């Protein structure tokens, strides 16, 4: 039996044994660190996330506190970004608004991706009549402009707390932004489902999927522990880009008065209200606008960087 000898030749380089094993994930993380615009996006995003988390400590004033004597105060040492029509500090409101914007973006995309990815995985793997029906339904949803669909959903759900439905009103009191989150989630589900399904369709033809079936794995195991990790890269890019889109959509909804209920600060509603005072208090809408621009740009750059790093055609990982 010469198997043992072969074992030795296979492993002759003992230094190779010491080398720590690199997963595809850690290789990709290393590549992202070398990706310039991706890193810029990551830094911007991290700074804004940090500011949102530390907002209660960072804000110089309570975001709801009015200073009647300082209405429309221009940016100064007291009020970094000036004040609004009630004399509230815009800087503090933007900090707290970052929490609202980010939480709406993250929560809505979390809901959308969990539902969309699950549906996409199952319909992609078990193609058939169900697959066709579900996908046509999502096609129909995609045919509506996102903002219109969100408005319809908001109109059905309602933004007021005086809901007759006790379940909805309970949610509304604890989490006022929930209707907006849900509306944005619904708008994003079809994109996740379609993207996942398309990726599954290419993955399931690969031999490792057949190998998993051949060794006796149940479909659920094949789908979730074999295929899902292999489509994660694509989904991760979609998640970052979708969060940016969700934040824009939340701003648009708040701009239209359908987002987070006033007087809670939201970048969209600040932009909307400030627009009326543009000629003599431009800072009122400029700073929320800049905040939206930076966060969305940061997320897009990050998403672009991830796409470059994770795309096997550009980066030879396998």
């Amino acid at each position, binding site marked *: 039996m010469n*198997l043992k000898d072969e*074992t030795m030749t*296979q*492993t002759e380089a003992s230094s190779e044994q010491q080398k720590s094993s690199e997963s595809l994930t850690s290789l990709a993380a290393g590549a992202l660190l070398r990706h310039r615009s991706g890193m810029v996006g990551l830094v911007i995003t991290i700074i804004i996330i940090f500011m949102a988390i530390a907002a209660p400590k960072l804000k110089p004033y309570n975001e709801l506190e009015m200073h009647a004597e300082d209405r429309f105060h221009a940016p100064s040492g007291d009020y970094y970004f000036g004040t609004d029509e009630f004399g509230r500090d815009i800087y503090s409101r933007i900090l707290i608004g970052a929490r609202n914007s980010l939480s709406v973006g993250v929560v809505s995309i979390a809901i959308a991706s969990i539902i969309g990815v699950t549906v996409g995985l199952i319909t992609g793997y078990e193609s058939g009549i169900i697959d066709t029906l579900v996908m046509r339904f999502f096609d129909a949803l995609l045919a509506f402009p996102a903002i219109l669909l969100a408005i319809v959903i908001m109109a059905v759900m309602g933004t007021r707390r005086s809901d007759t439905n006790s379940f909805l009103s309970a949610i509304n009191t604890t989490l006022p932004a929930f209707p907006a989150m849900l509306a944005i989630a619904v708008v994003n589900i079809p994109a996740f489902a379609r993207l996942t399904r398309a990726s599954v369709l290419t993955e399931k033809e*690969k031999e490792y999927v057949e190998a*998993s079936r*051949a060794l006796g794995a149940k479909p659920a195991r094949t789908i979730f522990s074999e295929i899902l*990790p292999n489509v*994660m890269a694509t989904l991760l890019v979609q998640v970052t880009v979708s969060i940016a889109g969700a934040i824009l959509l939340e701003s648009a909804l708040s701009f239209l008065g359908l987002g987070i209920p006033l007087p809670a600060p939201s970048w969209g509603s600040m932009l909307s209200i400030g627009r009326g005072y543009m000629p003599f208090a431009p800072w009122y809408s400029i700073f929320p606008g800049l905040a939206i621009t930076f966060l969305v740009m940061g997320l897009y750059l990050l998403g672009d960087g991830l796409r470059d790093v994770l795309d096997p055609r550009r980066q030879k*990982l396998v």
Partner: protein
Amino acid sequence: MSDITKREVLIEVKDLKKHFPIMRGIFRKQVGAVRAVDGVSFNIHKGETLGLVGESGCGKSTTGRTILQLLEPTEGTVRFKGTDLTSLNSTELRKARRHMQMVFQDPYASLNPRMTVGSIVSEPLEVHNIGNKQERKEKVKDLLQLVGLNPYFVNRYPHEFSGGQRQRIGVARALATNPDFIVADEPISALDVSIQAQVVNLMDDLKSELGLTYLFIAHDLSMVRYISDRVAVMYLGKIVELSEKDNLYDHPLHPYTQALLSAIPLPDPEKEATRQRIVLEGSVPNPANPPSGCRFHTRCAYTTDICKKDDPEFRDMGTKGTPHWVACHHAEQFE
């Protein structure tokens, strides 16, 4: 070697057919079928290696996959230790898979790139609930050692290995549940020639060590002769000749087998230069519309009228207790 056929039958394939429907139009009406496997019957005996050879697209891989029920057969039965696999429901079939495994052709595609070697090899154990976590870990290390890999490799990922090493991982995975039967679907055709011999030797050693039974699918005739006990030759969805390897390689009875064998390069350049080569005209006919009668008649040098009309019977022309099955009207004249 002739005692092989006297051993217990492990796999009994009877009249196996796999047709892939061709759909057209918006109503997906079936307009025909690709007859990838069209009536194949053979037995595989315990402890035997049956080689299955043929051109690309003749249905070798489909036969292997249909036997393992990875593809649902259109017709026919596959008995494994007496149980008809085609009659099992999905749960029973999953349980039965423990005893029959597969080694795949492409070692780059058949290992999940996101899983470590350890989790790839232990997956069959997890799926079939064999042992606890610690026992599985030990078993994986034993398996890696068995296929000639360093057990320290458990935490590595497939992309860190060469093709030959990856194929060893694939073999280790197939062996994890101590199966009786392994379908090896061209396990060496994606490897360098220098590595092919290593993997074939490994599989041969494991066979005698663990008492395995193989269906070895390949198109490399010399490699098949080396590893197999018996060899079956496929052409366009049917088996045209089946016999013990020396018998088949030395006295081929089917014109197609003769043509295939004449294409094997000889190591002696003088013999190579002078020998007669049978060159087949044309290409393999469309399996969706196979020729009438004998499927080989369009390319055969010995075609007569009967070949165009009647499908030849798959009959035993063996002598001295060595079965030699062949499907040709004119087999007698080649004896």
